[in-house]
């Protein structure tokens, strides 16, 4: 075993850090941080940043250079993702969805024309996708979705309702799952489409999350007509494609990096603030707590590094991604709670309050951490995956 990064990888990390110093606009540091682009202003800043990142090939570092990526290997991608998140760069769930979920699936299953149409623009940061998976009655049980796509002449006509679509209100396209053969059994009845969000018949209704931020939406499709060639891959094979798309390397290192960022901030706070006449960093309980968090972050990180390593050896991660996701997301809850404890009464001060500390990042992440074991497959479903796929336990 060897836990060292190579000199070249370390140099790359330094290059990323140096670049980030100048690339993150100072104004970004004044806006509410992390998790979601909350306002028009933060959305615009982050889109511009993503284009700058794209021009270096770093927005889609895994894509081949000729498609606008940087052709980076798994370890360098890990490093890049870690540094971007640790430095609170303006990238968030919209990039993850567009670049890693949709872009990777398109490269795998898309026609040559589709690849030409979308991949370079994704890599440059010119277009954003939203995910049209979940429906009111299809959450964890995604296969019971009901949105229909019916062939009519040279079009498909789409009817149905999607929900929780992150950034649908800004997205250029929707990556949509819809039933194309209602008579076929579950898992053999669905296809994937790229739908232009400017199509008539699409209605978007905002859903406000508990932070008070408009990040996700309900999206209604009423007789939306799309060209036939919007279907991606093989008709009625969407479930398989979707399952594959969920399997593309997702190390989850971003969550580990957020955790580290929050820990460093709370350590800093503890070293410079007093309570009851005593420096917080001298309080044995808080010391114990922060030490425990540092240890758990190390565990979280190794679980993520393992995934990148498996891929770098040409392997394929299976239940290991679920492990990293569960551990990282549950750790974010513990870290946010620990941060609140370190801040004491100041932790409850919300963004914009008199006397709030550090843009109320701890308070916001305390709320945000509720969603992180839900979105993208709940932790219960992830545990089912570990038990059945990883440990071979029986399904029934």
């Amino acid at each position, binding site marked *: 075993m060897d836990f060292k990064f190579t000199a070249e990888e370390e140099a790359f990390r330094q290059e990323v850090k140096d670049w980030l110093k100048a690339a993150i606009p100072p104004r970004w540091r004044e806006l509410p941080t992390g998790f979601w682009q909350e306002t028009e202003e933060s959305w615009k800043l982050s889109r511009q940043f993503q284009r700058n990142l794209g021009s270096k090939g770093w927005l889609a570092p895994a894509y081949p250079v000729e498609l606008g990526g940087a052709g980076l290997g798994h370890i360098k991608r890990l490093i890049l993702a870690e540094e971007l998140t640790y430095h609170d760069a303006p990238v968030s769930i919209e990039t993850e969805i567009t670049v890693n979920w949709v872009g990777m699936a398109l490269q795998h299953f898309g026609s040559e024309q589709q690849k030409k149409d979308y991949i370079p623009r994704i890599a440059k940061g010119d277009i954003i996708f939203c995910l049209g998976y979940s429906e009111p009655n299809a959450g964890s*049980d995604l296969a*019971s979705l009901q949105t229909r796509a019916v062939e009519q002449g040279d079009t498909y006509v789409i009817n149905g309702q999607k*929900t929780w679509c992150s950034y649908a209100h800004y997205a250029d396209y929707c990556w949509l799952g819809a039933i194309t053969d209602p008579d076929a059994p579950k898992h053999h009845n669905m296809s994937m489409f790229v739908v232009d969000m400017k199509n008539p018949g699409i209605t978007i209704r905002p859903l*406000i*999350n508990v932070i008070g931020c408009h990040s996700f939406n309900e999206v209604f499709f009423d007789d939306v007509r799309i060209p036939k060639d919007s279907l991606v891959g093989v008709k009625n094979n969407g479930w398989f494609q979707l399952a594959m798309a969920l399997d593309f390397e997702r190390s989850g290192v971003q969550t580990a990096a957020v955790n580290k960022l929050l820990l460093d901030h709370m350590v800093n706070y503890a070293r410079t603030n007093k309570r*009851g006449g005593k420096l917080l960093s001298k309080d044995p309980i808080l010391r114990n707590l922060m030490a425990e968090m540092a240890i758990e972050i190390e565990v979280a990180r190794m679980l993520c590094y393992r995934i990148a390593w498996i891929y770098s050896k040409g392997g394929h991660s299976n239940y290991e991604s679920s492990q990293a996701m569960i551990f990282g997301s549950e750790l974010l809850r513990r870290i946010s709670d620990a941060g609140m404890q370190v801040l004491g009464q100041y932790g*409850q001060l919300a963004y914009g309050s008199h006397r709030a500390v550090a843009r109320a990042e701890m308070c916001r992440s305390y*709320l945000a951490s509720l*969603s992180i074991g839900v979105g993208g497959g709940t932790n*219960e479903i992830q545990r089912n995956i570990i038990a059945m796929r990883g440990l071979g336990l029986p399904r029934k």
Partner: protein
Amino acid sequence: MDLGLNEEQEMLRKSAREFLSKECPKKLVRELDESDTGFSRDLWKKMAELGWIGLPFPEKFGGNGGTLFDLIVLLDEMGYNIVPGPFFSTVVLSGFTLLEAGSDEQKQSYLSKICSGEMVMTFALTELDGTYLPKSIETAAKNKGNHYVLNGTKLFVPDANIADFMLVAARTKSSSNPEEGISIFLVDAKSPGVRVTLLKTLGRDKLCEVVFEDVKVPEKSLVGKLDSGWPIIKSILRKATVAKCAEMVGGAQASLDMAVNYAKERVQFNRPIGSFQAIQHYCANMVTDVDGSRFITYKAAWTESEGLPSDMEVSMAKAWTSEAYKRVAVLAHQIFGAIGFTMDHDMHLYFRRAKAGELAYGDADFHREIVAAQLGL
């Protein structure tokens, strides 16, 4: 031993549940949460008419002659429903202080106005470091003949934005023992030099910063004996702590009930999610946390209510309940999936209060330290 409520308490619980679900629906809770006052005069008046505001105070001051334990039963229900407003600061923090330390005249003129619902009051105790330790009280009250002059900053003061009067803990004498030299004053919130800034909090409760700048208070505003305020504050903090626990137990119960109902209704994979073992185990853990919190809280309340030494019991209750409510609220959120992560859903109202409750009157670490000391460590 009798671990049940008596008949009157059962009735109080039942009628509180009915009254609050009708008169304080979640729509009102949200409106108040989002407003700058957090106060419905209409609801306040109705609660006064029901005798709730005067529940634990003697009849001769317009109260209902009940006990602290009766109040706990009511607060449990108030936590269950969520009732924004200055009930806690007025009744628990201020009413008990006046009852325990006020002169007859102060009780006649202030406590009776509290009971009748005419007066909203709070206690400005904590300062910049946000702790409940005597040494962090630095606000000074200087004697200038027939009046005192107050200077200092209080932080995290509940409901100061709407209070008519405030009790203020201030230093009247410096001493090597931080418990000595603290006095309590009753200050008109409209006095010149009092400046209140509303804070924006996770719990959306109305916590404030209160700055006192050369505030003149007459000598007769002293509550209790000069320089001997700390023992009173300690006694009030014990009551406030166990009262907060009761609210939290109610909130945890509501979170559990909501989640269990949802688990029975929400169907995924052609079966109610409550039929999945993962969800069942969550519910089992939650109900155990709720019941455990209720018993440990009620025991502490009973001990304090009976006038027995209760430091240990109260701290045990707060340490346990602070963390149990949080666990319950997080699991409830998990059971709700994405729908619970929306502003329109009620679950976050409880999640927020679980944190606010934990921070109020000392978190689990603070109280475990007291337990450790009580154990002789």
